[in-house]
């Protein structure tokens, strides 16, 4: 199993480092590792406007999605944890389970609605669509974070002279920060490798996020090592962050296991 898990990743690296001769071998024996590993592809990519442009678009989209989802999701999670009014459980379940709504079903109406609103072919539109996916996750993760902070802390701050708002900003928020950072990273990754919304919203524009760029390049039947190199660059931040926030990712992945 380890082999099956690792093999595709190995192949990706191998191709991204391959020189021309190792990829296109006219009948000669193909080596397990490229004859002359080269960073040529990466060098080429990092100086290509198209690639840099897509990377920047991806970055902008992801950051915008992070900001919007945190602004919307964190206060909502706080309210859902700290306030008790009738129907709040149903509401929580509803908000969190919106993430189960199939994205491929919503993508056509989203494009149709976004087109007249001028949200097609730009970063804002893609980020707005990504928020539909990410806000439920933020609510879910942030609820877990706030639940783990005893309400005593805030009440204590109030008794010591802080108003509700001051208590939140001086006590609850600083304590919650590491957990909320995990939520932010989660949203970043979700937006970073999201394909469907980005593709439909950017299919006919010059703007592309990295996954969309990959798809667009694919239609020119490009060289394998170029594809592999972009793939590696796209994966690196995801792999890094995933292991940083593994604990929280697990919670997110297994969400719904307890009903």
């Amino acid at each position, binding site marked *: 199993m380890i082999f099956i898990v690792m093999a595709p990743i190995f192949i990706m690296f191998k191709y991204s480092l391959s020189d021309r001769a190792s990829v296109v071998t006219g009948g000669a024996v193909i080596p397990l590792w490229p004859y002359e590993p080269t960073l040529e592809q990466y060098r080429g990519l990092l100086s290509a406007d198209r690639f840099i442009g897509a990377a920047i678009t991806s970055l902008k989209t992801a950051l915008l999605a992070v900001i919007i989802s945190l602004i919307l999701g964190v206060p909502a999670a706080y309210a859902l944890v700290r306030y008790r009014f009738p129907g709040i459980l149903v509401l929580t379940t509803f908000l969190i389970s919106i993430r189960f709504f199939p994205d491929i079903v919503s993508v056509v109406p989203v494009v149709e609605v976004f087109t007249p609103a001028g949200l097609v072919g730009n970063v804002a539109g893609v980020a707005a669509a990504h928020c539909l996916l990410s806000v439920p996750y933020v609510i879910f993760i942030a609820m877990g974070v706030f639940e783990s902070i005893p309400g*005593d*802390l805030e*009440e204590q*701050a*109030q*008794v*010591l002279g802080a108003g509700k708002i*001051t208590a939140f900003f001086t*006590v609850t928020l600083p304590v919650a920060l590491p957990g909320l950072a995990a939520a932010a990273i989660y949203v970043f990754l979700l937006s970073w490798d999201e394909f469907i919304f980005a593709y439909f919203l950017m299919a006919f524009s010059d703007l592309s996020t990295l996954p969309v760029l990959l798809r667009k390049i694919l239609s020119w039947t490009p060289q394998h090592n170029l594809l592999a190199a972009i793939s590696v660059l796209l994966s690196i931040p995801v792999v890094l962050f995933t292991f940083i926030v593994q604990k929280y990712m697990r919670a997110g992945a297994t969400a719904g296991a307890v009903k």
Partner: protein
Amino acid sequence: MAEVRFSHVIKKYGKNEVVKDFSLTIFNEEFVTLVGPSGCGKSTILRMLAGLEEITEGDIYIDGIKTNDIPPQKRDVAMVFQSYALFPHMTVAENIAFGLKLRRKPQREIVSRIEESLALFSLRGLGERRPRDLSGGQRQRVALARALVLSPKVLLLDEPLSNLDAKLRLRMRSELKRIHRELRSTIFYVTHDQVEAMSLSDRVAVMNEGRLEQLGAPLEIYNSPKNTFVASFLGSPPINLLQARIQKEGETLYVNIGPCKLALSRQFRESYLHCAGRDIIFGIRPEHISIGESGKGKPILATVDVVEPLGDRSIITVALHKIELALITDAQTISPLRTIPIIFDMEKAQFFDRESGENIICKNR
């Protein structure tokens, strides 16, 4: 410092009435303890006074000012939570400074006040530590220091000692008493530990199921409990409560417990005369039963069942015609299955109504 008055306070969660018609006045500089079994509404009362919980009906006054609608941060009340609620992201000094900073005290004053309170609570040198690097007792003192550095009108303590081990609890108990003496603050203290309540307070309020059962000085409550609940809540081992009947024979009143017949001395005759012929509950504390032939009253023979030595004293359970009784003695030589004579100190005995559980004398007063 201040005077606190609860006036007919009621708290409901939905339909569930958790606090029922609660009235109590805490005088200036007084140490009042609220005791009662778990879930009887003690914390709720404290939280209403702090402003953390809405009052369903009734009023709370601090220094004669109605505080029902004043938010917690404006009440000038400090509270120490059972969990201490120390802010984990701040050092000890920052924790203590929290309230002072919110009150916009000048920096120099804040520093000197922190120094003072670190000294007062023997926390010197710990100012830069985080709460997680402190022991339980130190955390507890930080929580106290943080509350008291604001010189609040009232200090509220919700089971502050319940998270500490037995030895530390004893030490902090005397510490609290010293602090109260030095700072002369009005303290409202919640606990379910009757020993803490008795040893610390000027007055004790006993609660049960949301109702204030009795209020008074510790010894007053101990010696003349208003009903069987209060009687059995205070004291360890608890008071012996026995089914009995009062009978009049000639001019003398007798208490019949099973087949035993105990004469009441003349001085109580008046008080209990009207109960003649009634079923009652007879209450006697373990320390008011003595072993031996000599003493006031007639000895009865009982069989020793269990002996629990405590060192200086022993708790002894005896069987008196199938009725179990606990008593405390300093005699060291008692062994199980022996038959011993015991004497009830009838002057200290309590009589409760069988139906209502009310103390017959208190009710008459």
